[in-house]
């Protein structure tokens, strides 16, 4: 279990949630004054998700925000001015006005990858960041979010599968806010808990209350710790509610009023304020101090953004290619020799944990048998194609115990159920006999 947060940390969580909310409320006003250039997407009601999960990361860890993860960017060290200027398309914004909203990042200091609007693509990308971090010996964890809607994209599934097969130190927060634009989650996914998406890939998956910032923090902290210990990836479904339309233009009339009321009573900021008060973490004076500080900070940041210039038109032509403007260097935290020959050299062959098939060889098959399915199992076993008799010559040649559980045996071409000799070999092999204890080593 994760270590409890200090009093200061608990109060800091409130600071970030309230900063997130007040920042966005100001942006709504700016939007109405036509000072926001494009669309404005609200994370009202989802602040605990962004703040609680990002707070579980260390500075060396990487995240990639989605459109409603402004709070995570604040936790990661970006300033409110970055958010204001991005939305107002200013030359002072992190992207110099080339992109808007939360579409920005920082490779060097805040380890943040910019999202794109196409959903799911961050999942393979952050898997790659995690793999590279492991390769370089950095011991980092990567984290991104996906909505209930985005969990139906191909990139989500391809990415999660790859993360799982690579055991990448990667945490995916599945932010189930009940609505993908105007379509309720029940019409997108025939599952009660979207965490089941992760179980399909054999990874640790859980569901937590997304409006409870401490629950989100604790679940994420556990996941991050697990990932750092090599037990990743992890998927966490957080159940929450999008309290506004898809964007400012959308009044969300398709959402039943009662549903808004139900979730309004569970407002994450109000709930957390109550928690802090009831547990005597703070008093009314502390709260008003923090609220006043937030107002002061946002005044300065907003003023900076409003007074910032638009980008010069000729900037449009610049920066398509990196022509030496960036130096690219990997931050090695392990000896490079480990990945260079002769140390890196191995026998190019698979090591297989099992040969496939049903009982005892596929994880989980044993549980089915134990549940009293013995008769059925025996009957169905007979219909199974025979298993290969032994490891292939190539597998035997493998000198190292370089475990590759995810590998799949290639049945030699032309060998299969119709090959009598092959079937015979398979039947005579003790490993294929369910009663022979030797088959499990």
């Amino acid at each position: 279990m994760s270590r409890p947060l200090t009093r200061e940390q608990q109060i800091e969580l409130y600071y970030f949630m309230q900063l997130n909310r007040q920042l966005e409320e100001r942006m709504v006003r700016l939007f109405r004054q036509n000072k926001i250039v494009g669309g404005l997407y609200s994370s009202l009601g989802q602040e605990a998700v962004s703040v609680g999960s990002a707070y579980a990361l260390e500075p060396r860890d990487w995240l990639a925000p989605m459109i409603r993860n402004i709070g995570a960017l604040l936790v990661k060290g970006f300033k409110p001015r970055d958010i204001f200027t991005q939305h107002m398309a200013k030359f002072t914004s992190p992207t110099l006005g080339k992109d808007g909203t939360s579409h920005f990042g920082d490779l060097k200091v805040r380890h943040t990858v910019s999202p794109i609007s196409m959903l799911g693509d961050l999942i393979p990308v952050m898997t790659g960041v995690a793999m590279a971090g492991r390769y370089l010996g950095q011991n980092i964890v990567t984290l991104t979010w996906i909505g209930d809607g985005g969990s139906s994209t191909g990139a989500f599934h391809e990415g999660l599968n790859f993360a799982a097969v690579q055991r990448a130190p990667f945490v995916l927060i599945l932010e189930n806010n009940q609505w993908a634009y105007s379509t309720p989650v029940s019409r997108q996914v025939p599952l009660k808990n979207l965490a089941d998406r992760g179980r399909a890939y054999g990874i640790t998956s859980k569901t937590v209350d997304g409006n409870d910032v401490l629950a989100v923090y604790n679940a994420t902290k556990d996941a991050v710790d697990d990932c750092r210990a090599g037990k990743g990836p992890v998927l966490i479904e957080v159940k929450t509610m999008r309290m506004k339309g898809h964007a400012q233009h959308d009044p969300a009339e398709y959402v039943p009023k009662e549903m808004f009321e139900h979730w309004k009573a569970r407002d994450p900021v109000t709930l957390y304020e109550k928690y802090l008060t009831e547990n005597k973490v703070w008093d009314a004076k502390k709260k008003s101090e923090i609220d006043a500080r937030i107002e002061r900070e946002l005044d300065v940041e907003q003023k900076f953004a409003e007074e910032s210039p638009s980008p010069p038109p000729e900037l449009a032509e610049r920066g398509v290619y990196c022509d030496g403007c960036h130096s690219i260097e990997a931050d090695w935290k392990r000896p490079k020799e480990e990945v260079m020959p002769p140390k890196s050299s191995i026998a190019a062959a698979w090591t297989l944990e099992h040969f496939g098939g049903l009982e005892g060889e596929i994880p989980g098959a044993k549980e089915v048998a134990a549940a009293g399915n013995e008769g059925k199992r025996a009957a169905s076993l007979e219909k199974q194609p025979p298993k290969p008799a032994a490891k292939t010559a190539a597998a035997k040649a493998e000198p190292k115990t370089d475990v590759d559980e995810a590998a799949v045996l290639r049945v030699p071409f032309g060998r299969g159920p119709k090959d009598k000799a092959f079937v015979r070999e398979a039947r005579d092999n003790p490993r294929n006999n369910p009663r022979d204890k030797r088959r499990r080593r």
Partner: protein
Amino acid sequence: MATITMLEAIRQALFEEMDRDPTVVALGEDIGVYGGAFKVTEGLLAKFGRERVIDAPISETAIVGAACGMSYLGLRPVVEMQFIDFIACCFNQVTNFLAKSHYRWGAPVPMVLRGPSGGGVHGGPFHSANPEMYFVHTPGLKVVYPSTAYDAKGLLKSAIRDNNPVLFFEHKFLYRRIKEEIPAGDYSVPLGKAAVRREGDDLTIISYAAMAHTSLEAAEQLSKEGIDAEVIDLRTLLPLDRDTILASVKKTNKLLIVHEDTRTGGIAGEIAAIVCEGAFEDLDGPIVRVTALDTPVPYAPPLEDRFLPNTEKVVAAARELAKY
């Protein structure tokens, strides 16, 4: 000097770059134990190990996305598409994530996406494609398509060392059909520079990849008829070497463009526009195209033969153009 195939030249470039730079890693389907569908990566796993040679699931979006993420940490991944046709499966990652990354937020993506492309081997509609123009139309990418073993090795090295996402097309018809003497040791060929393969005064033939060889054959035939053709091999399609194109047209005053890609939206149209903008006054005849048909690549040999440009088609078109 050793005589090697284009495929071996590509393999050499991979080995040498991975030996030179531990940030270079390889990802792809069946590239490790199996050595790749065409055996381009054979031996790579044995030498560099599983951390650097990653056998990935059949999941182009995951592979390319992960490679992009790796590049953000300073690695230089080289991704193999088993056949370049499958790049369609990760089109979004390539065009929206990779290509726009540096422009949008200043994050360079130093990676290479390479794979066997092109027809003439009866691979049918899904194993013969020349999808280069989807990507030539995408600012932020570089697109390379070599025609010789020497260039393939030198350009792949440049691509791996480049700070941008480079798509590297390897014409599978040429993989084992052309052999060439290659100097020992390290050398590179710069991206964005075309090569004049044959000098001539009567007309210019611009081409690339397998069709560069077809164009050279046609030029030899034409020379017997007294037509002296200059042949330019583009080598890189994005960025395009405008200077070499315009200089040649200003010299010969006639332009024939040959490509194996389909006709509509092929690079011939872009080159024609560049020449009209930059050398219109120098033209003595129409700009002529010899290209594949505007159809999918058909499977049966007689159909594919009809689909593809060949020496006879190029000679016939050049003969007509020379009359102006």
